[in-house]
C-alpha cells in the first residue's frame, strides 16, 4: 500500500512517499527512509504530494529523520502536503517542526 523512493535531485536528497502511511505500513517505510539518517551536508526534501493518510506511527518516522538531520546541521523540507495529512500535522504541532516547500 505504501511506496517509498529516495533520489538525489539538484544536490538535495528527495524522498517521495506515496500511498497510506498507517501503523501497518510504518515499519517498512521507516526502513526505506533509514538511508536519509546517514546523509551529510545535504538538505532533505520529503515529497508528500501523493501521501493519502498518516497516523502517529508515520509521524514518528518524520520526527526520527528530522532529529538525525538537525543534529548534523541539515534541513528537512516537506513538499506538497494533502489537506488530510496537513490536518494531522497541524493537530500534532508537527507543522511547526518542519519547513515546507
Amino acid at each position, binding site marked *: 500500500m505504501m511506496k517509498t523512493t529516495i533520489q538525489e535531485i539538484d544536490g538535495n536528497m528527495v524522498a517521495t512517499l506515496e500511498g497510506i502511511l*498507517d501503523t501497518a505500513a510504518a515499519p517498512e517505510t521507516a526502513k526505506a527512509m533509514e538511508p536519509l539518517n546517514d546523509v551529510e551536508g545535504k538538505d532533505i526534501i520529503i515529497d508528500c504530494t501523493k501521501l493519502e493518510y498518516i497516523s*502517529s506511527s508515520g509521524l514518528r518516522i518524520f520526527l526520527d529523520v528530522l532529529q538525525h538531520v538537525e543534529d548534523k546541521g541539515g534541513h528537512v523540507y516537506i513538499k506538497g502536503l494533502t489537506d488530510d495529512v496537513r490536518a*494531522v500535522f497541524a493537530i*500534532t504541532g508537527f507543522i511547526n517542526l518542519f519547513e515546507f516547500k
Partner: protein
Amino acid sequence: MNKVLDFIRKKLSVKVSLGVVFFAAIIFTIALGYFFYQSREAVRQEAVNRASQILDKTSLRVEGILNRVEVATNIAEWLVQRHPDKADSMFVYSRGMLLNNPDFYNCSIAFEPYFFKDQGRYFSAYSKHVGDTIRTTQGGSDNYQYFFMDWYLMPTLLDKPCWTEPYIDIDVATNTSEMVTSYCKAIKDKQGKVIGVINTSLSLNWLSQTISATKPYPHSYSIMIGRGGTYFVHPDTTKITRQTIFTQTLEKEDTALTALGHAMQRGEEGVKQMMVNEKNCYVFYKPLGQTGCSMAIVCPETDIFGGFDRLRQTVMAIVFVGLVLMLYFFIRIITRELKPLRRLAKEAENIASGKLDVELPKFERIDEIGQLSQSFGNMQQSLVKYIEELKDTTAQKVSIERDLNIASDIQMGMLPEQFPTKDDRDDVQLFASLTPAKAVGGDLFDFYFRDEKLFFCIGDVSGKGVPASLFMAVTRSVFRTVSAHESMPDRIMNTINKTMVDMNKTHMFVTLFVGVLDLPTGRLYYSNAGHDAPLLVGAGVGVLTCNPNIPIGVRRNWKYSLQESKIFTGTTIFLFTDGLTEAMDANREQFKMERVDEVARQALNNHQQEPKQIIDVMTDAVHQFVGDAEQSDDLTMMAIQYIKQQSDVRMRKSIALTNDIQQVPRLNDFVKEVCETVEMSHEDTLKMKVAIEEAVVNVMKYAYPAGTTGDVTVEAASNDVRLKFTIIDSGKPFDPTVQADVDTTLSAKDRRIGGLGIHIIRQYMDSINYERMDNLNVLTLRKKLQVSNIET
C-alpha cells in the same frame, strides 16, 4: 444673678474663697456674738456697780450734810438755852452757825413775840451769806411776821424737829429769792415751854449741784424727789418744786415711771431699765436718810454701752474688712496657684484638637500641680506613641483587608463561573452558588467536563476564614490535578486524601463529595468523604445513599469506597454544605435537613427542579429563615440535572481483530464503512480513521505481552446524535485517558516519541471514556454527528 452664679461656678478660686470666707464669717459671728453678749452683760454689771457706788456716795454725802445741819442746830439750841436772856448773843450764834458751815444758806434764831421785852414784838437773829461775807440782821417785822410761817409753826405744833417742804426764801434786803429747805427745831426753856425756833436752810440749788456733781456718765443726771414726789433736784430747773414725778404720767400713761415714783416714795432701793424721754435708760434709785427724800441717777444706755457699742462696731468693721480682704487675697492666691492648671487645660484642649506636638509648660514645682504637669507630659508622650502605633495598626489592617479582598477575589475566581444550561448542552445542566460567611471561606465546589464525563465535587473545610480558604484552594487544585488522570471517584478521593494528609500540618480536614457523571449513560460514580449526602430530586425527593467514610486529611491509608447509581433523565442532584442545614436565625435555631427536604419537595411540586431554580428557591427560603441574623457559616449549593434524552440506536457494527498491526488496513476499511453509513464528511471520516487506528494500535502494541496473541474488538454504534466506537480487549488493565498529554509546542529535539496517539484521539473525538469491566478494558470514543449528516 444667674450670670454671677455661673461665674462663681466656673471659677474654682472664687468658689473656694467664698466657701472659706463664708465659713470664717460663721465662726466669727458665733464667737463675736458670744463675746459681745458676755461683754455686754459685764458692761451692764459694771455700770450697775458704778452707778450704785456713786449713788451710795452721794446719798452718804447728802446725809452727812443733813446730819451736819441737825447737829449744828442742836448746838445752837443748846447755846440759846444756856443764855436765853441775852438778845445780842443770838446774832453771834446765828452768825457762828454760818461761819462754821459755809455751805448752809442761812440761819435764823427766831423768838416768840415779845420774848425780849426791850426788843419789841419781833426778834429773829438772821444770818445769810452775801458774797464772801455774812450779813446778820434782825429779820422780823410787820411785813414779815415769821411766827406765822410754816417753818415756825411745824416744829412747834408737831413738837419735834422737822425738815420743811421746799419753799422760796425771799431776802428783802437784797431782794433775792432762793428755793430752800429748812431744818426747824423748837427751843424750849427749862419749864419745857417753847420760846422760839431755830431754822437752818440749805439751798436746793446748791444741794442739786452737789448731788449732780458726780456723774458716772457724761449724759447721766440725778433727780431727787420729796415725799409727795415733788422734784427737788432735776436737770430741768423749771420742774423743781413745780412738778412731781407723776406729772408726766397724767399726760401720757407711763407705768414704768409710775412704778419708779411709787418705789422711790416707799423709800426702796434698786435699779430699773426704762424709757425716759424716749431714751433707753437705767435708773438707779435710793432713799436719802430720814428726810423722806429719794434720789435717782438716770443713765442713758447709749452712755453705758457707748464705748462698748463703738468697740463692737469697730470690731465688726475690722472683721468685715478682714473677711473682704481675706476673700480678695484668697482669690488672688488661688488664682495664682491655679494659673498652671489653666495653662494645662489650654494645652490639653490643643492636644485634644490633634496638635500632639504642643510643648507643655515646665513647672518648677513638686506639689500636686507639679505632679499633674509631669503626669500630663507622660500622658502626652504615651498618646503620641499610641497614636503612632494605632496608625501603623490601622495601616496594617487596611493592608490586610485589601489582601483579604484580593484573596477573596482570587478564591471566587478559582470557582467555575460559567454554568452549562440546556441551551449549551443536551445532556446536563448545572448551577452552583457559594456565599462565604467571611471575606474568604472554606467551602468549595468544582466541576468540569472530560471525555463526556462530568467531574464534580463539593466540600467543606473545617473552620472558616483565611486558613480554611487556603486549605480549600489546595483541595480544589489537588482535585483538578488528580481527576485529570483518574476517572473513578474512589481513586480520586484516595489520592487526594494521601496528598492532603502529607501536607496537613495543622490537622485540618475536609468533608468532600466527589462525583463523576457519565453523560452518555447517566451513570453516577461517587465517593463521599464525610460530606452531607446529596438529595435526588426527580420522581420524588430522596437522599443519595452514602457510605460512612471519614473526611479527607485524617487517615493516610483510609480506603474510600466507590458507589454507583443510575441518574434518570430529569433528575436533579442537589448538593450542599452544612452552611445550609445549620443556617441560624436570630434565636440560634437551625434551618435543619427537614426544611431543606421540604423546600426541595415544594420546588419539585412547582416544577422548579432545574438547577438555577432549585438553588434560587433554597436561597430565598434560607434568607427568609435567617432574617437579619449574621451569616454563621459558608453556604454552598450545587445542583446538577441530567437531561439527556436517550435516542434509538440506528446502526450497530463490529469487527474482531488480533494484536497484529498488519490488520490496521482492515480496521481503517471498517471505520470508513461505518462513517459512510452515518454519512460522515470526508474530513471527519479521515479523523475517525486516524483516531480509531491510534486507539486500536495502542492496544495491539501494549495490552498483551510481546509474542502472544490477543484480541481487540471494535464496536461501532450510532443514534441520531452520536457515533460511538467501543474498543474492548482482555489485556492488562490500562487506562490511556490518564496519560499525560504531549506538548505540541516543543522543538523536534525535545519532542518525545509517544503520547501522540492519545493526543490525536482527544483532538478528534468528542469524548473518550475508559472502564475496566469484567477483566476487560473498555474504551469508549464518541463523536457527535453533524445535523446536516442526519438530514441528508
